[in-house]
């Protein structure tokens, strides 16, 4: 493996012919290992995961707790670096980048959505959504305009001035989605985004994800342990003990927009309180 890595670094064209699958992958994880050291104990969170995701795919990652899903997401999101293995994002080897370079990649190419929303408290929805643009160096007028558009895209027009504690869980998660997509990322990573939401609100959030994926071609990687949520994706990857156990296309992909039409509308009003 080490030898192959050396070759890949020295000559990417050879690497392409050996390692990377035929279709051009936006994410190429290659034999990724991640070991956490806690005192004397070594935790092998990932033990050689190889995964390619093509541009415009909607992938659901599943697996038991502790199987390495979040670790994978952190590496894909350039929040963390693999202990071993290469990660090529959009044609660029990012496994050896510095902290600042990874921050810049997160700023421009990646949007995050977390289970716990992770919005800044006591800060309006608008300001929360403006935040990534502040770090990406977008001008003031543009920041405002794009944040407004982004909030409108997730159905929160008119809620711009609300603080997180004035919004329901579903609304907070939609603010987080608006924040994730405001810098026009190629990739959105969502780690259990519906974990704290009820079923209807989950469908609403999935509707937004499906729309972003279909209409804007944003690549989506979503971690979930709920099989029915995974059915909204086009492909399911199952982790077990730090390795990929299964990887298959979804046969009857669910359509959140269709399902929402059939749900009673009253609940939406309730949620707004």
């Amino acid at each position, binding site marked *: 493996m080490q030898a192959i890595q050396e070759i890949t670094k020295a000559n990417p064209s050879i690497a392409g012919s050996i390692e990377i699958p035929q279709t051009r992958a936006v994410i190429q994880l290659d034999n990724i290992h991640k070991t956490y050291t806690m005192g004397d104990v070594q935790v092998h969170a990932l033990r050689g995961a190889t995964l390619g995701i093509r541009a415009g795919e909607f992938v659901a990652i599943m697996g038991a707790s502790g199987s390495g899903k979040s670790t994978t997401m952190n590496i894909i999101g350039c929040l963390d670096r693999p202990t071993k293995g290469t990660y090529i994002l959009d044609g660029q080897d990012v496994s050896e980048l510095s902290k*600042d370079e990874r921050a810049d990649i*997160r700023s421009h190419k990646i949007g995050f959505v977390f289970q716990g929303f*992770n919005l800044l408290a006591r800060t309006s929805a608008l300001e929360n959504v403006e*935040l*990534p643009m502040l*770090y990406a160096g977008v001008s003031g007028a543009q920041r405002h305009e794009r944040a407004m558009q982004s909030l409108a895209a997730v159905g929160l027009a008119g809620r711009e001035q609300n603080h997180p504690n004035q919004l329901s869980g579903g609304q907070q998660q939609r603010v987080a989605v608006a924040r994730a997509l405001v810098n026009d990322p190629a990739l959105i990573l969502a780690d259990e985004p519906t974990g704290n939401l009820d079923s209807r609100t989950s469908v609403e959030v999935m509707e937004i994800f499906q729309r972003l994926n279909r209409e804007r071609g944003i690549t989506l990687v979503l971690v979930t342990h709920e099989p029915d949520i995974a059915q909204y994706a086009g492909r399911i990857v199952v982790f077990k003990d730090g390795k990929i156990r299964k990887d298959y296309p979804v046969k009857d992909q669910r359509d959140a927009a269709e399902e929402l039409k059939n749900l009673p509308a009253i609940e939406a009003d309730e949620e707004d309180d």
Partner: protein
Amino acid sequence: MDLLNIIRVAFRALQRNKMRAALTMLGIIIGVSAVVAMVSIGQGAQATVQAQIDSIGTNLLFVSAGAQNVGGVRSGTGDSGTNTLTVEDLDAIKREVPSVSMVTPAVNARGQLVAGNMNWNTSIQGVSEQYPEVRKWSVQSGEFFTDSDVRTAARVLVVGQTIADNLFAGADPIGQTIRVQNLPFRVVGVMVRKGQDAQGRDQDDVAFTPYTTAQKKILGSPRLQIAYVSAVSPDATYTAQQQITELLRQRHKLNSNDPDDFTVRNMSDIAEAANQTNSTMTMLLACIAGVSLLVGGIGIMNIMLVSVTERTREIGIRMAIGARSSAVRSQFLIESIVLSVTGGLFGILLGVASSLAIPKLLGWPTLISMMAIVGSVIFSVMVGIFFGYYPARKAAALDPIDALRYE
């Protein structure tokens, strides 16, 4: 991310916890306002003393009867129990010390002045005709008495404005008669108004008569307590002091190991002592105030450290959405600077306000010092940077994943 945005982010973060920000600033506010007010008080006192000394003249020497008090400079009269200073001593000083230009004794007496049916109890000073020149204090109307008045112990008085106001109520006192111990005195002059001295005493509540008159007709004793001597120039005061001391020791037949039975002091000594006392006080006050500023700074560091810990998750979020470590560091550093500088500005306002109020409330003169203000601003910025740097570095060093996982 540019500086303006970082400042904006820092302000937003502080706004989210206004109460805490205000309390943190309080330490700096108190520190800076204390420094500004204390320096104002010290400089005010210094300026007053300096003005007083300038008006007296730096070539002035005091010769007083009796040894100098232990404990340093003491203005006012000499030891009243001694007879160690005589008119002959003064004549000798005038005659034999070349660096001395003028001499006037000052014989102190208190007495009741009566003019018609008006009464006034005041200080009567027996002096020589050279007094106005020696003390740089001239007459406003009439004339000071002459050397022949001194020789003949004439019953003449030159009065201060307070006496003129109180005994004659607007009428011209020149040529009027004032009775002292039932003896009639003729008023020959009125002194220029001097106002209050630094201690708030009325300097115009005084009457002058020839020292011979005071000794013979009021006190009935030839005793002298104090004399004012003018050196030929400010530079000559030290020489004059030496020469007077030598002369008086010789005249008093003191052995080489006897202590002086008189005291000679010059104005520059007194001025220096006063200035030194004042600058020591100013320094001391400023240092105490500076310590409170330091404590304020430590308060900022404390709050910033708490803030970094409390906001670990926030830091993680910022990093996850693309903030570089440097942006996080700048944010916390600027929050700290904003706290200390805003506190500093409020402190200056409060300090200037109290400097303006102190003369009215406490009667102490103040002089607002631009240097203290500029110094406080610079010091606040430095406090902000110094005490903000460590917490900011701690924030920037956080790992985004650990920070996000922080509960």
